[in-house]
């Protein structure tokens, strides 16, 4: 049922010159569920998520958010749809000229015109939700470890209580313990704000921790989709090779990434 879908993608295409990155992606993200898309480096995961976010214009295809077509939508309306989104970037993408609390409160102050005092209170509450003390709020991003930056990025992603949260490689570059902490925080925070989540990763442990559903992208197409718990018994040789991390198999890894 289309009304049960928070995000519906059909025939999404994107090429850079002669290099076809997305070649007709079809993807459904059910409302209130967490979908994790796996795939090797350079398979188009990031391009797909950027097209859905509106950071990149697709060449063809359809993207519906809450049943509303967003491809080709006027900029002002698109900005309104953007308010439904929260995003945790791979490198956290914190604004290094602003203290931590202002990073977390940024969307509230700049995007929604909230008073700074009120926004700071919310920011400190969100920092607490991701396990950070209020004193961290006055530090600058450069003073934080990679794991703490991810936590701050997560606090920023949930600050405005978005309807959809995107996670781009949330555990990349973290040690296993911190990766597990982040996975657990993602699950907690998504439940807390009651959001739909779309993540991209190549971390299988992360997929099992945060995903209700899973899909695999290969050569610009979704080649498998199902429940996350079924990923080990997909019956798809591409998925099996990826899940088991075998060098031999049908997957040929591209050299360039996008």
């Amino acid at each position, binding site marked *: 049922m289309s009304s049960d879908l928070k995000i519906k993608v059909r025939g999404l295409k994107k090429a850079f010159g002669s290099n076809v990155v997305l070649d007709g992606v079809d993807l459904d993200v059910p409302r209130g569920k967490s979908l994790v898309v796996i795939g090797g480096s350079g398979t188009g995961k990031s391009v797909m998520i950027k097209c859905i*976010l509106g950071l990149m214009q697709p060449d063809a295809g359809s993207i519906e958010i809450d049943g509303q077509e967003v491809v080709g939508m006027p900029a002002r309306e698109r*900005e309104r749809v953007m308010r439904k989104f*929260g995003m945790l*970037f791979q*490198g956290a*993408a914190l*604004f290094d000229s602003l203290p931590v609390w202002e990073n977390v409160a940024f*969307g509230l102050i*700049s*995007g929604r015109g909230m008073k700074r005092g009120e926004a700071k209170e919310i920011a400190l509450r969100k920092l607490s939700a991701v396990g950070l003390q209020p004193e961290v709020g006055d530090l600058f991003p450069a003073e934080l470890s990679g794991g703490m930056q991810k936590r701050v990025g997560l606090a920023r992603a949930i600050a405005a209580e978005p309807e959809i949260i995107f996670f781009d490689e949330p555990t990349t570059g973290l040690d296993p313990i911190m990766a597990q902490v982040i996975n657990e925080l993602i699950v907690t925070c998504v439940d807390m704000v009651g959001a739909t989540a779309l993540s991209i990763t190549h971390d299988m442990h992360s997929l099992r921790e945060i995903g209700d559903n899973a899909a695999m992208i290969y050569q610009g197409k979704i080649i498998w989709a199902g429940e996350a718990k079924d990923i080990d018994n997909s019956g798809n040789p591409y998925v099996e090779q990826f899940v088991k991390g075998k060098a031999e198999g049908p997957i040929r890894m591209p050299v360039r990434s996008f």
Partner: protein
Amino acid sequence: MTTILQPIGRTFLNGLSAMGRLTLFALVAVRHCLTPPFYPRLLARQMIEIGYYSLPYVGMTAVFTGMVLVLQSYTGFKVGAEAAMPTIVVISLTRELGPVLGALIVAGRIGASMAAEIGTMRVTEQIDALSTLSTNPYKYLIAPRLWAGVTMLPLLVGVADVIGILGGYFVAVHKLGFNEGNFLKNISDATDFIDVFSGLVKAAVFGFTITLMGCYHGFNSKGGAQGVGKATTNAVATSMILILILDYFLTELFFAR
């Protein structure tokens, strides 16, 4: 023949394409400069960065330019130098050297830092993050910089004109022994509104050019540290060339009859 023409044609088309992209970027940026929301806090920060922190560099350039002008004119003219010198100093500084040298100094300082800052934000996805936080990067990053460039450069050049003339006065009176009263009177007589006004208009145009180039190259940088470095170099180089080209056309606009 085809092998010779193909690269020439490709270069020409690439040049046209780059100009088109820059023009589009400029139009979008100007539109966002004129429509709310505005960010006064960011504008103030950029005005201080461009205006206040550039003042020592522009001031030093101006004072020594004024001093050298007087010295060069004196050794060049010998006879009648005392009468001609104030006119030379005023016209050279207000019409040309003040705005052009000031703009070149600011291009090196501000153009580079803008391209590096915005370029780093681009490659670390901070600009994408702005969009996901319901904040238009043009309004937040570009508009305050363009406004600050257009307003601060004329102010800087106005101050540079005064400092440059003071430098000239110092050398003329205290080194060459010119009559102080005559020098100041001649300076006052030689100062025309159009000379100062044209210099300030040039400064505003150069301010727009410098900040536009810094923002454009930074905004479109890619490929990590190397890409940011390239953006920085391109921002400074294109700003400087454009300043000299625009200087000619603006001079023609104001003074060619």
